């Protein structure tokens, strides 16, 4: 009985589809039927679609059929309508597409932004994390960028659970509180290679003013230039001393206390440092047995750079 009922419904839908095709096809290309045909069977998707950024293509009224409404993403619908529905007859059914084909489909329109210029070679794309993993076109709770989740951090934590653990530390940037977003520092669509660091890492980190670390977008007083730069900041970057996601240190340092962090570089060994004869180690006036000397930055106040003193005293 159910089988027969299904056949009946399918037949009615097919007939309805042919009827609609007969009515609307002359207005479109041979294979395109127009979004109004789609809404007949997909009212829940079409009804709120005027709030969707993609509705622009319909509102425009001047786009070609292949760039308009439902069929701009899903391809020509004639066969789908004639078959009375079914995923198999949708030319571009995203749930059935290979990841690289999903990127192809979206980049037909969305390659026109500089921030997405590296999307094909991005870490995400190369790991098959593509547009529909993060964006939900028809049921997004975040209308601005059609994110698949309300909070951007939730979206990223979905895969980057180690990052979620780092943001659970006592001290962290306020991502969980919604004050800053992952995209304040990272470009999930692929960033240009970092020119402040060596090798290919960090790979997905966005840049401030074109070529500086994103930390400087907010921490404006650390940018300088200073007459006396702490070279470590400029050469290997802020992460030399800081853990930007989270730390047990109140200033997001990599060590809970200051002096061991400093001493690991300032040990005078080898051919390290600007002078290639070792990074200077503390002299005999520093009694490290005295807690007073364990807070290096009490005296070396301007540790990120100074204009007056090469030891960063003022």
């Amino acid at each position, binding site marked *: 009985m159910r089988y027969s009922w299904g056949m009946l419904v399918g037949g009615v839908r097919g007939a309805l589809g042919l009827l609609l095709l007969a009515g609307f096809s002359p207005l479109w290309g041979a294979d395109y039927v127009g979004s109004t045909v789609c809404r007949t069977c997909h009212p829940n998707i079409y009804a709120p679609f005027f709030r969707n950024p993609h509705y622009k293509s319909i509102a425009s009224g001047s786009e070609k059929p292949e760039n308009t409404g439902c069929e701009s993403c899903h391809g020509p619908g004639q066969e789908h309508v004639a078959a009375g529905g079914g995923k198999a007859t949708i030319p571009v059914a995203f749930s059935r597409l290979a990841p690289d084909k999903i990127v192809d489909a979206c980049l037909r329109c969305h390659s026109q932004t500089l921030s997405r210029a590296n999307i094909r070679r991005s870490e995400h794309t190369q790991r098959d994390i593509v547009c529909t993993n993060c964006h939900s076109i028809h049921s997004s709770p975040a209308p601005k960028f059609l994110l698949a989740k309300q909070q951007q951090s939730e979206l990223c934590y979905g895969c980057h659970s180690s990052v979620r653990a780092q943001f659970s530390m006592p001290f962290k940037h306020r991502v969980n509180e919604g004050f800053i977003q992952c995209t304040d520092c990272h470009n999930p669509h692929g960033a*240009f290679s970092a020119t402040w660091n060596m090798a290919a890492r960090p790979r997905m980190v966005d840049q401030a003013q074109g070529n500086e670390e994103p930390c400087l977008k907010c921490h404006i007083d650390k940018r300088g230039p200073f007459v006396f730069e702490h070279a470590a900041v400029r050469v290997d970057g802020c992460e030399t001393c800081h853990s930007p996601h989270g730390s047990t240190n109140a200033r997001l340092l990599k060590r809970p206390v200051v002096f061991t962090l400093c001493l690991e570089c300032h040990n005078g060994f080898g051919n390290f440092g600007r002078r290639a004869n070792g990074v200077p180690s503390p002299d005999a006036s520093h009694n490290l047995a005295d807690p007073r000397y364990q807070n290096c930055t009490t005296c070396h106040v301007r540790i990120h750079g100074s204009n007056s003193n090469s030891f960063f005293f003022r």
Partner: protein
Amino acid sequence: MTPMMGTASDFEERMPTRRQRSSEIGWLSPLLGIAFAAFLHAQTPVAPTTEPVGISRGENVSGYNVRQSFELGYRWHSVGGDDGMYRGTVNYGNGPRLLSSSLSVNSLEGHGGLFDNIQLNTLGLGNDPYESASLRVEKNRLYRYDLLWRSDAYYNPGLTITGGEHFLDTVRHLQDHDFTLFPQGSFKLFLGYSANTQTGPALTTIQQFDVRGDEFPLFANIRRSQHEYRLGGEIRLMGIRLNVLHGWVDFKDDTPVNLAAPSAGNNPDDLNTLTSLQRSEPYHGTSPYWRVALFRESKLWAVNGRFTYVAGHRAFVDDESSVGFNRIGTPISQQVITLGNAERPAMAANLTFSLFPSAWLTLTNQTSIGNIRMVGNSFYTQGTNGSFITPFNAFTYLGIRTIANSTDADLRLTKWFAVRAGYEYSARRIRSQESTSIPSGLIEQENGLQSGLLGLRIRPIKVLSILLDTEIGRADGPIYPVSQRNYQTFRGRIEYKQKSWRVAGYSRTDYNTNSDSLANFASHSRQYGADASWTPRNWFSIDASYNKLHLDTLGAINYFAQIGGAGAPQAVTNNQSYYVSNIHTGSLAARFSLRQRVDVSVGYSHVQDVGDNRPGGIIICDPPTGVLGGCAGFLTAGTLVPTYQTFPLRYLSPQGRISVRINEKLRWNAGYQNYGYHEDFSGLQNTSQNYRAHTGYSSVLWSF
């Protein structure tokens, strides 16, 4: 054509029959449930509820559909223990708040008058420490305007940094305005403005009156601001987009510093005192920049290039006068005047070329160049008791040039198996000079880094995916002992995803060894984790995750220490600093609904650094006796004894929330979250930062 198609609004007007509405509710409920569960999963602080009430369809007014929601509530908290640590880590206070709000205005036909779409969202307005508002106004094909405003009340006593002498209680306001003309056109125009201000009281320190003098806390009234103006355009010619942006960044820091009251300094045993200090140090400058980019994407190839140039300039004056007694008790008055300027032109360029010869192969080559120079001079003079030293002009130079080239190949061998491989070479040259005379020869450092990577993607069945990556790098001249020299990374990830449940696991290791003839630095970072979520019904879900973050580093250190608590500090050479951290984090969250009217959620987050099972703290030598938890009597110059550092602590946070749907437009929410912070080591700087805090809120969410 449009009239025949009908408009979405026309269609929607005919839509809302009772049956269809319930159908919509049924369709959306699982999504809302998942979103709600996800909200909990992150252990975000109990606060704004983003849950819409029922299906908010909004109201149609003058061709627009308008939807709004406001969540008004009251926050409370109580803290036992170190309030400063609570404020540094959580910082929610008491009082009424507009916890969240949203406004959405959409043109029904996509042809509004002045605009087609407005999106406004706010968070924490009223007096929350983290407030934000975002606004988007746009008219299709004509313009788009984005505003992001944020305010952060930052409190940080910094007890473990300088014993609280670098305390900060500042407010930072950030705003970004971006206006785009013809956002979907072949020609676009960009206008932008950003502001970043930081104001508020702080403490800082100064060492007076010589390098062996005492340290004195000073009061600083922080006043910093940065204003950035942007103007740019983009044009498409022959399929290539050329994007040009010019920006001007003005920065100024006019923070006055003074001594609040005469001070004996941090060391009460010496005679050093500071009776007055005034410092004025205006620091102003600009950083105009250019960015030129071009990019094109086609079926067979893609190219993009970017060139940026930033010309940073700062001018400064430091005028400081102080009066007190030096370390042998002699009255002293000192005046320091510094003035000069610093320049930092920075250039960076990237060129990326990708080939897609077939559907299964992608080849990418990228070249990047970065060149940054810092040149500055500083005129310095110091007067002591009216006698000025010979002023000197300090000149410094730091130049960093990095050139890198990488090639990657991504090969999709089958539908379920892909492999990628890459090689990168980067060369960096650092030139520097610090001099108090006429510049002479430059010191030069070079480093070459070669790295290779190999990755596999395996998807044997649709619901199972496996990712494996490894990267190995070798550098021949890293600049610092902690820099990368011989490093290797490995990442693995496996995910099994069904409709109602998902389970994933990952592993990541980062090893680096930077050996030198006399010293060694080794860093081992290992991370493991697993997480799972289960949503068997749209009214019930449960999420859990566990991660272990392990880090151990072993670095060579040299320092001086007073042996036996007396005498002159002696050199401790070839010592080692051994830091161990084993952080376990776990979270558990569950949510269930009762008859689609009441949502209840509970969660628990646990962070625990167990160290390596030694007593926590810093042990300067073994065995741990004497000063510094320390080594008096055992340490002699030249001994090789490791310096252990391990800091066990716990940071726990259970939370619960209830949300009751009163009617289609109204919902009542209440939440409670507990924070517990406990250090399992003797307090650094003789401080105890432990605390336990209760926070909560009650609110009413009104959507219409």
